[in-house]
């Protein structure tokens, strides 16, 4: 009996030791990720920060690394993002609403759902090939801001659809029932109640989607975005009639990640410093958007009290 107790105690001690060991290993493996993240950001900032100046932000790329800047790149990124947002947000939210609120259980709905899941797993460069074949050569949109924006919109669409659906699913049915009880139609219920309550969560998903689009490089290289560009597209607002111009949609362009890729793939170390500086701006853009999304999610979760 005494011996048995002793045995049990050693087994317990051994199991506890294993458990403690695992906790340490677990913490360490999380640390690998976090430490890499911090190292990456620090490395980028140490290399790039000295190069970062006002001059860098408002100069065109140049053959001389110390004169080169990212003006064309960040203007291009903003223009492309405008097209992406305009194209992807309405379509994404609309399909999210259809799938969550309207769709019955039939094969067509199943097909759409399988498609959305599958599209989220398609490598981004495939979207570039699609855009090259379809937008550039079939629709003759050219290697333009419009093509790039639409390409990234297709890429972002599954993210917007999935988050819209999750946001709508979080709205309790009692709200819908209350609206119906007051005689509201289905669309009135959605438009006046369900959508306004879920718009915060939808926004979070949209921001995350757009921040992914900001960092996407491969599909835009595939459609033939230029890597060296020393002019800006036409401004969208003009001084003379009709004041608004859409010629910027057809303009050739470059974006931040492509500019950085161009610099990093050159052998001269000076250009790699430029790449680091562009990377600092890029990472501030994407991490800023991610942080905004996380903050919004946190606020929304705190606010909601059904």
């Amino acid at each position, binding site marked *: 009996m005494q011996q048995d107790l002793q045995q049990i105690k050693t087994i317990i001690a051994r199991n506890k030791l*294993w*458990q403690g060991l*695992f*906790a340490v290993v*677990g913490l360490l*493996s*999380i640390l*690998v*990720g*976090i430490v890499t993240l911090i*190292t*990456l950001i620090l*490395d*980028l900032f140490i290399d790039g920060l000295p190069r970062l100046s006002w001059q860098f932000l408002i100069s065109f790329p140049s053959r001389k690394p110390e004169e080169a800047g990212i003006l064309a790149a960040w203007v291009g990124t903003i223009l492309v993002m405008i097209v992406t947002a305009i194209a992807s947000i*309405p*379509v*994404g939210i*609309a*399909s999210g*609403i*259809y799938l969550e609120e*309207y*769709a019955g259980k039939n094969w067509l709905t199943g097909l*759409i759902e399988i498609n*959305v899941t*599958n*599209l989220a*797993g*398609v*490598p*981004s*460069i*495939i*979207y*570039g*090939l*699609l855009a090259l*074949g379809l937008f550039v050569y079939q629709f003759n949109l050219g290697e333009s801001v419009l093509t790039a924006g639409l390409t990234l919109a*297709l890429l972002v669409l599954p993210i917007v659809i999935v988050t819209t659906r999750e946001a709508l699913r979080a709205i309790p049915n009692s709200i819908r029932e209350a609206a119906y009880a007051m005689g509201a139609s*289905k*669309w009135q219920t959605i438009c006046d109640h369900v959508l306004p309550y879920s718009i915060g969560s939808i926004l979070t998903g949209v921001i995350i989607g757009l921040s992914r689009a900001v*960092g996407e*490089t*491969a599909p835009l*290289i*595939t459609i*033939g975005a230029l*890597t060296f560009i020393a002019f800006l597209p036409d401004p969208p607002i003009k001084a003379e009639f009709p004041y608004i111009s859409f010629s910027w949609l057809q303009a050739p362009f470059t974006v931040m*990640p492509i500019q*950085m*890729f161009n610099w*990093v793939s050159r052998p001269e170390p000076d250009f*790699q410093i430029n790449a*680091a500086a562009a*990377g600092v701006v*890029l*990472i501030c853009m*994407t*991490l800023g958007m*991610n942080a905004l999304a996380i903050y919004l999610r946190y606020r929304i979760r705190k606010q909601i009290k059904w």
Partner: protein
Amino acid sequence: MVERQLQITIKPSSSRLLRNIQEKAIEILLFLAACSSVATTIAIIGILVYESITFFREVSLINFLTDTQWSPLFDDAHYGILPLLSGTLVTTTVALSVAVPLGTIAAIYLSEFAPFRFRELIKPCLELLAGIPTVVYGYFALLFVTPLLQNFLWDLPGFNMLSAGIVMGIMIIPYVSSVSEDAMRSVPVQLREGSYAMGATRLQTALKVVFPAAISGITAAYILGISRAVGETMIVAIAAGLQPTLTWNPMNEAATITAYIVSVSLGDLPHGSLEYQTIFAAGLTLVLMTLVLNIFGYFLSRRYREKY
């Protein structure tokens, strides 16, 4: 509002008709938006197959699958996909041998060991890893990780699949850990309580009860990680070099399918030329690989689905 109510009371039938038409129109509009994803899939398959058919008229499929050289841009052109496949497989393997163990252990720790507040703090931080643009990872792999590895692997060339794969693996950690953690957390708490009641420790419960119960979700996480690694482009394009070579050694320079597509797109591609079609043939191969993975994952997760 008052006006509308008045109308309803006066002419209920016509306004109801109008309302019904409006409702139907909105539903059709929303349905069309939902169909956009189906249209995208059809367009992707259509474009890839259409351009590849013209490619395979020039190059036989057997040649494509067995030739050990890929040099479509040279005078002595060879169209064998094997070098690109070997590059893709090697970088994917390196990435997974980083991401799968680290991601799984992190997921087990976060779901079974970590205190609530710690988890709420760490999870978004890990997810930031997936939010960093891949170009930046490429820079990091080429100019930080490779020189670091060269400190003890002296003969490591400047471009190599090892550092690209390692960095890619770290990028994939959150995909693996997030999805598997969700899967493990959705395991009912009664299973854990039952295990504790039998005298099991946290670790025993995690490894022998929760992990097997969540295996379908964890498999889905691994499949997601693999398809990310196969499709990842910029890290390999920057850090692994762009030279298609048939090699299984991660210390070598090589090109993946995605890196090849990028490197060719950087030049001026004449539309309709054979070089132009090669990127679609390569893209079709990539899509087929991810498709097989997805189907495989689907069946695997169904095969092992636990019912509670």
